[in-house]
């Protein structure tokens, strides 16, 4: 059984390391520093941590002001309150100014669990992807989260990073390289391609194992960067594997599935099935119960691959 670590914990760890490497980094939070794990940074670098209180709009505005003054700013809250609530401030004060702000949003998706629909943000990738100049990242596990947080810190400009609450299996070897905008081939196969993002990578691997037992060999792409999308890998998947199943812990509207479908339709049409939340709100429950109930289990991905009848 693989070790399980929540990507928000990876974020907290990476922030402390970044704080030592770069004295220019400042961190903001909106009264959730224990949950988002920015408290780890605050404990070591209290002078560079600012609590905005429960005021996410102003947190993003202050982040913009700090960034245009030369700081590399990390701003965190739950995904719902880090993307939806301050959306327009992110658009106008952060993205329009190309401010060097990294919005690191934890507790994204259904796996927030018991807190229920009000806290289960299923639209953040769609919202952030629509903003010009915004880079959108969605790491799968501890190794990729730490690597992508560091890549975001090194990148100049606004970045949205989606992080989860629940502990998820570590799927990558320590030291695996991740580059913004470059999808990672997790497994090779020519019968179909599963393009997954975030914690759905682990489910995709399980699905691929189920399919392999039936003689279906699928390629898996980790699309950790939702924007800019690695179109070359999407087109290659279409041409070489014949059909694509996308998998995301997000609405099927506007996120990875939409991005892949757009690229495929324009450049290399093939059948595409989208695994994601079907335009409905979540509810309270345990993370794995919820993923099953909303059709985001490994079995659902495997069934989608078979339904496309590529092979």
């Amino acid at each position, binding site marked *: 059984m693989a070790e399980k670590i929540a990507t928000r914990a990876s974020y907290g760890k990476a922030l402390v390391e970044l704080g030592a490497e770069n004295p220019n980094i*400042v961190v903001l939070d909106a009264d959730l520093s224990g949950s988002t794990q920015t408290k780890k940074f605050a404990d070591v670098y209290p*002078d*560079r941590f*600012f609590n*905005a*209180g429960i*005021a996410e*709009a*102003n947190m*993003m*505005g*202050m*982040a*913009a*002001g*700090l*960034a*245009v*003054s*030369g*700081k590399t700013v990390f701003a965190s809250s739950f995904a719902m309150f880090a993307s939806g609530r301050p959306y*327009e*401030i992110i658009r*106008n*004060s952060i993205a*329009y*100014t*190309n401010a060097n702000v990294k919005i690191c949003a934890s507790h994204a998706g259904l796996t927030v669990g018991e807190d229920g629909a009000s806290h289960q943000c299923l639209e953040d990738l769609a919202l952030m992807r629509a903003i010009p100049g915004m880079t959108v990242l969605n790491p799968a596990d501890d190794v990729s989260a730490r690597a992508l947080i560091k890549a975001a810190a090194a990148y100049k400009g606004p970045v949205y990073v989606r992080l989860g609450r629940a502990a998820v299996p570590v799927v990558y070897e320590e030291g695996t390289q991740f580059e913004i905008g470059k999808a990672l081939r997790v497994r090779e196969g020519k019968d179909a391609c599963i393009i997954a993002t975030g914690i759905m990578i682990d489910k995709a691997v399980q699905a691929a194992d189920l399919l392999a037992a039936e003689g279906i060999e699928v390629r898996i792409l980790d699309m950790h960067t939702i924007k800019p999308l690695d179109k070359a890998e999407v087109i290659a998947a279409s041409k070489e594997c014949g059909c694509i199943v996308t998998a995301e812990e997000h609405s099927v509207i506007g996120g990875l599935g939409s991005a892949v479908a757009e690229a495929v339709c324009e450049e290399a049409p093939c059948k595409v099935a989208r695994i994601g939340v079907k335009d409905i709100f979540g509810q309270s429950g345990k993370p794995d119960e919820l993923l099953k109930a909303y059709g985001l289990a490994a079995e659902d991905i495997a069934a989608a691959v078979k339904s496309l009848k590529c092979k």
Partner: protein
Amino acid sequence: METVQLQKIAQTVRQHIIRQTYNAGSGHPGGSLSAADLLTALYFCEMNIDPANPGMKGRDRFVLSKGHAAPALYACLAERGFFPVEDLVTLRKMGSKLQGHPSMILLPGVEMSTGSLGQGISAATGMALAGKLDGDPGRVYALLGDGELQEGMVWEAAMAAGHYKLDNLCAIVDHNGLQIDGRNEDVMNVMPIAEKFAVFGWNVLEIDGHDFEQILDAFDMAKKCKGMPTMIVAETVKGKGVSFMENQVGWHGKAPNEEQAKQAMEELGGEL
């Protein structure tokens, strides 16, 4: 600088506001005219800035939180030498760096892109935080509209600036009493402004926003106040300087036609 000289510059700024909005065929003359004296005092007397080096270290920064008063800001920047005065007539035209609301990416000298109300004061709060972190001697100024105070985000920023004791931040409310839909008191009452900021932990000063001595004195008092940000509530007249625009709601977001522009310029001692 002598008050008389500042008054003369402010008159030139007002002429530019009329010329710009007339040439653009749209824009916001009323709130630009009410802010003209405050901006003139900042750009020609108060702030430590260098048009030849807009990114100068240790400079003072200004954020036009009421971004629709862009014509007043552009007039000051041009007259101060940040860009040629001739460019002012490109306001709101395709390809111009003079966007309908200020863009820091396009126009050097603009410290923050604004236009969406409530966001400028929040960014200014972040700038002041950065200044404190770096021990930067520069001060941060922000100008808000009175209608803008209806945005909840203003009060989030006010709370934060008070909490972090940002005495390097000086905000000003251009209190002309009018907004798009009518008088503040009819649309959504914002009074009392001074008392609200005081209880949020600000040093509050109340002045006549068209009296240069009072404006400059207030900036001095703000500098001397330690441990809290300063809010200057400036009583102003919307449309100030143009008789038919003064205190008229209709001139919030409407450009003068040729005849109106000519009359306005005559009153302001200039030519269209």
